């Protein structure tokens, strides 16, 4: 243990570089510090998004005006969507845990381009401020929905330009992170770290990075076109000038469908780390999981049209998109089967991260299976743009990515802060959160099947029952969140010091001190031929 103590003196948290305090953080190119910068900025934006979500639910408690007027509501769901998608779940796991852990997991001292890494964070912050500027200056917050559909997006009088520009900058930040990760994974694996020995989380980051790289520019140019349309009237999406609004939707979803896999792949990766650790067992079907990761990343490019089944595409395109949507569901199914099989005959140590991971599987299944309802033509025509879709994506984006994020933070917390959290409170937080989640979003499935459209400020009184339940759920959920955050914040400062490897895991990040030293490794590790990330005995 003496080695650990020595390392602790100059761990990355306490390390003193050229600058002290805050400045030392925002000028640091250490991937671990950048990871935490992302964590704090993302959590800040997440809190804003949550408050907007709660406000919407409060408004929907009863038909008619409850707390805000229609214009405010429309801006609220737009800003909520933009924040949650572009600022929270797209960067979420890769930028926080990818940055913090990926170099350690592959046995490297940093990412390939540390300065570029820091620049990505600055771009993220710049994007955030641009979007926020849209709220406080000009003619009020944008009210187009996060999809910015043409032609409404260039007819609205609200302050759309800064928001669109902000989303563009955020996209750029995401591209640079992806680029950095790809080069790092290709070039900086330690000796012996073959592709077939990479931890699964790294594999998912690899797949994600490709999507970030190849899909984000398409939405970038689409947003530029929207801006040019507003500024100069170029005409590309304006039906009055011969443009085709449906083409806008194609371009938007060419990015935004792959983007949903940007959100979920790293989440799946985190789950694939957690389950073997707590089962103390070799992951079931390592290669199958890798193959399904890459399959999702690839097929995910080809199915965007399932968001447009009622938009007026040709029948051929509808047929094709529906078919491929079903194909893309299969690799996710494979993952679920492998996760559950990993538990079989394990020696399962049920701890907070595993509660999150198991509930992740449950809500992810509901989210994913409801995706199948949306992927089928006849049923999607009925529930498209209704509360059913809202339920689907909250279940999968925030049940999936959100729960995985929670699992990840409870799993890697001792590594990141070198301290342990209070397990009792952590479990209580999970339970409240989980119950609230089910109460909040399950009614929306029902409402959607009954025909309640989404983005509705007001609704018929027949829909009220479900909405009341849902609003109550949002309060329970928020209570759970508060418990969790208070517990983590307190423990980060005062928790009991954590061991190097509290969960007895085998991946490399657990073989360095908690918290890691500035350089991660004193010596670059070497992976022996018969060693591997999940070699449990």
């Amino acid at each position, binding site marked *: 243990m003496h080695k650990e103590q020595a390392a602790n003196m100059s761990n990355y948290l306490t390390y003193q570089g050229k600058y002290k305090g805050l400045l030392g953080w925002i000028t640091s190119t250490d991937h671990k510090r950048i990871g935490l910068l992302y964590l704090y900025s993302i959590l800040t934006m997440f809190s804003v998004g949550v408050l907007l979500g709660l406000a919407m639910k409060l408004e929907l408690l009863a038909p008619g005006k409850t707390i805000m007027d229609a214009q405010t509501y429309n801006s609220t769901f737009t800003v909520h969507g933009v924040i949650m998608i572009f600022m929270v779940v797209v960067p979420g796991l890769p930028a926080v845990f990818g940055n913090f852990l990926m170099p350690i997991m592959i046995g490297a001292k940093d990412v390939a381009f540390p300065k570029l890494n820091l620049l990505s964070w600055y771009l993220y912050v710049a994007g955030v401020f641009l979007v926020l500027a849209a709220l406080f200056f000009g003619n009020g917050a944008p009210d187009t929905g996060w999809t910015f559909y043409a032609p409404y997006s260039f007819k609205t009088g609200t302050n759309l330009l800064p928001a669109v520009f902000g989303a563009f900058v955020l996209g750029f930040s995401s591209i640079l992170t992806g680029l950095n990760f790809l080069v790092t994974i290709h070039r900086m694996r330690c000796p012996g770290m073959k592709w077939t020995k990479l931890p699964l989380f790294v594999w998912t980051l690899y797949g994600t990075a490709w999507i970030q790289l*190849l899909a984000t520019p398409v939405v970038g140019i689409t947003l530029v076109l929207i801006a040019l349309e507003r500024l100069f009237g170029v005409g590309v999406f304006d039906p009055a000038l011969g443009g085709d609004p*449906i083409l806008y939707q*194609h371009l938007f979803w*060419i990015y935004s469908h792959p983007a949903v896999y940007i959100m979920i792949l790293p989440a799946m990766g985190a789950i694939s780390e957690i389950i073997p650790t707590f089962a103390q067992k070799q992951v079931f079907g390592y290669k199958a999981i890798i193959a399904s990761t890459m399959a999702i990343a690839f097929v995910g*490019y*080809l199915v965007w*049209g399932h968001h447009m089944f009622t938009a007026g*595409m*040709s*029948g*051929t*395109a509808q047929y*094709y998109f529906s078919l491929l949507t079903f194909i893309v569901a299969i690799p996710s199914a494979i993952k679920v089967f492998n996760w559950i099989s990993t538990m079989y005959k394990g020696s399962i140590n049920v701890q907070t991260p595993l509660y999150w991971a198991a509930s992740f599987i449950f809500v992810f299944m509901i989210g994913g299976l409801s995706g199948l309802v949306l992927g089928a033509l006849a049923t999607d025509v009925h529930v498209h743009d209704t509360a059913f879709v809202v339920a689907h994506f909250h279940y999968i984006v925030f049940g999936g990515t959100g729960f995985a994020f929670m699992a990840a933070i409870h799993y890697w917390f001792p590594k990141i802060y070198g301290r342990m959290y209070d397990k009792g409170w952590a479990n209580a937080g999970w339970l409240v959160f989980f119950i609230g989640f089910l109460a909040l979003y399950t009614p929306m499935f029902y409402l959607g099947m009954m025909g309640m459209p989404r983005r509705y400020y007001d609704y018929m009184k027949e829909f009220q029952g479900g909405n009341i339940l849902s609003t109550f759920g949002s309060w329970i959920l928020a209570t759970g969140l508060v418990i969790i955050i208070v517990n983590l914040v307190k423990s980060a400062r005062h928790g009991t010091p954590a061991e190097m490897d509290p969960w007895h895991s085998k991946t490399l990040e657990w073989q360095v001190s908690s918290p890691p030293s500035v350089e991660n490794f004193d010596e670059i590790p070497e992976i022996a031929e018969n060693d591997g990330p999940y070699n449990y005995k």
Partner: protein
Amino acid sequence: MSNEKHHIVPYRVYALVLVALLALTFASIGIVSIELGKYTVAAALIFATIKSFLVLTYFMHLKYDKPYIKAMVAFVFAIFFVVIVITFLDYLYRT
């Protein structure tokens, strides 16, 4: 690393490629000025494709690069092509 074996491309290769590119440019101008009807687009694009192939292989050194870089480039072009084809599944079949 810094002194790893790097292929030095002779001037001659570059000169030849440039000549070929210029020739293809003028050929494509020539070919569209004769009436080919609806094949003009195809003709012009085929010439452009050959040209870009030359630029990629020689000017951008792909010929001398490791296979995985070639594979990546091929993959990117392929996926872009597939995306265009899929988009046209909509436009070609609209009634």
